[in-house]
């Protein structure tokens, strides 16, 4: 267990935002969060709760999905960022790792990583590349392969590595654990922790894997149908009985078996 955020300073603040897709579909109904500088903040919630939407609203990727923030405000270091384009945000140090990998299929793994350094004007790109390869040795062996042909997990590594290449201050991670082998999940979260501790990066991560997320995060928000229903320090959330039951799958006597689950929620025959 880590100390809660190092500073009290708020790096990123989301105030009561509302998001509408396609002019008609209201998805976020007033979400507020604050991400302390140097902390790892987790955004939890079921499918369709609006985690991805929240992250995209912050990184301003919503426009390209025909979504818009209709109410509320988003501040980064106290300045409103709603009008910046994603590229400008990256320059300011906010980068998002998108859900579902989104690699550049036709570029090689290495070229993918290099695009991450696009906004940087100085610094030692080669050294950072080595750093990423250190974190993900598997990528090194596949550096010349087209990203489109790498396995799901490899693509996830590429996406995270690519974001690291921009030397961001604040990283928005959307489901980093999805599709990764358990070992790797641990590894990636360890990397997140390392970066957080050593480099002082701030993280906001959307996760389904509540278990891991709450182990590594300092603070958590739980989102349900577009609203924050609960928030608190990660340690508190872990002890919350509802969280335990619905997000961690724990009953009073340890983990339930997935096989047993159905016995008490079992429905009647579903096909007659």
């Amino acid at each position, binding site marked *: 267990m880590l100390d809660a955020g190092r500073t009290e300073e708020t790096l990123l603040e989301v105030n009561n935002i509302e998001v509408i897709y396609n002019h008609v579909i209201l998805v976020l109904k007033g979400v507020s969060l604050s991400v302390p500088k140097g902390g790892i903040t987790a955004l939890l919630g079921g499918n369709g709760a609006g985690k991805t939407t929240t992250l995209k609203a912050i990184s301003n990727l919503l426009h390209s999905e025909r979504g818009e923030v209709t109410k509320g405000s988003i501040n980064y270091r106290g300045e409103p960022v709603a009008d910046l384009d994603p590229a400008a945000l990256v320059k300011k140090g906010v980068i998002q790792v998108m859900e579902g990998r989104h690699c550049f299929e036709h570029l090689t793994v290495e070229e993918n990583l290099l695009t991450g350094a696009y906004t940087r004007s100085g610094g030692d790109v080669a050294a950072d590349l080595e750093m990423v390869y250190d974190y993900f040795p598997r990528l090194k062996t*596949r550096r010349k392969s087209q990203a489109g042909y790498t396995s799901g997990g490899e693509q996830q590594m590429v996406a995270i590595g690519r974001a690291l290449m921009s030397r961001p201050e604040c990283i928005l991670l959307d489901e980093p654990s999805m599709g990764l082998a358990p070992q790797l999940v641990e590894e990636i979260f360890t990397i997140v922790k390392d970066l957080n501790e050593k480099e002082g990066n701030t993280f906001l991560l959307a996760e389904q894997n509540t278990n891991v997320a709450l182990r590594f995060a300092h603070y958590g928000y739980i989102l349900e149908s577009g609203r924050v229903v609960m928030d608190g320090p990660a340690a508190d959330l872990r002890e919350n009985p509802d969280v335990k039951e619905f997000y961690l799958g724990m009953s009073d006597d340890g983990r339930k078996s997935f096989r047993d689950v159905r016995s008490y929620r079992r429905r009647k025959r*579903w096909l007659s």
Partner: protein
Amino acid sequence: MTQVPADSYVTEDGRTIGPTVMEMKNITLRFGGVKAITDISFDIREGEIRAIIGPNGAGKSSMLNVISGFYVPQEGEVWYKGAKRPAMKPYQVAQQGIARTFQNIALFEGMSVLDNVMTGRLRQMNANLIQQALWKGRAEKEEVENRAFVEKIIDFLEIQHIRKTPVGRLPYGLKKRVELARALAAEPSILLLDEPMAGMNVEEKEDMSRFILDMNDEFGTTIALIEHDMGVVMDLSDRVVVMDYGKKIGDGTPDEVRNNQDVIDAYLGVAHD
């Protein structure tokens, strides 16, 4: 108690596992220089839940692709229902009753949930073009009958409320469910699931598990499943194949696999509870 045939057995929880329905024999698959699968053999028995696990890039998805005929291995044979399967197009494989879901969701984004699930009924609907053009006779009848079937699946998977929503708009988890619905709608004899629970929280995983088990239970559908959540794998599966770098490094019941040192080194990291 019914008689259990010689080549079958009954599990602890009372399900009958039948003889081998599908057998992979010495499969090797290469992509240029990359060896995705190296000389792997394993079998799937009727009615069992067979898991395939392994680190990222081990070749699990490729293996499913071989089964569904999308990749043609350079070496090796696929035996299905006791006969060697000849070279086949993927759609022919599907017509034999093998349905699947995909790791990177492969739904038809422009269609509604209902239409997506209805595509699962391909095998059952055979009206010809003229009948369909006139919406008469067989076409209309089939449409209504199969719709009824599909509605039951929709009900079962609890996706009634999004029936008419275009799939493109759905969040990830629901998409996964729709994909499962599409596969179930085919009433397959073998169901291949590629990471059906990726990106879900525990509650949703529980639901998914329940669906899978029910499916297996009610119809005796054989299921082959890739999953990274060891809890799920260990709880659900009857037998597990473990792959690493394209090679098979373990095969057996969950307990056997869990204690196999190679598997622990390559994949699990620590022995899983």
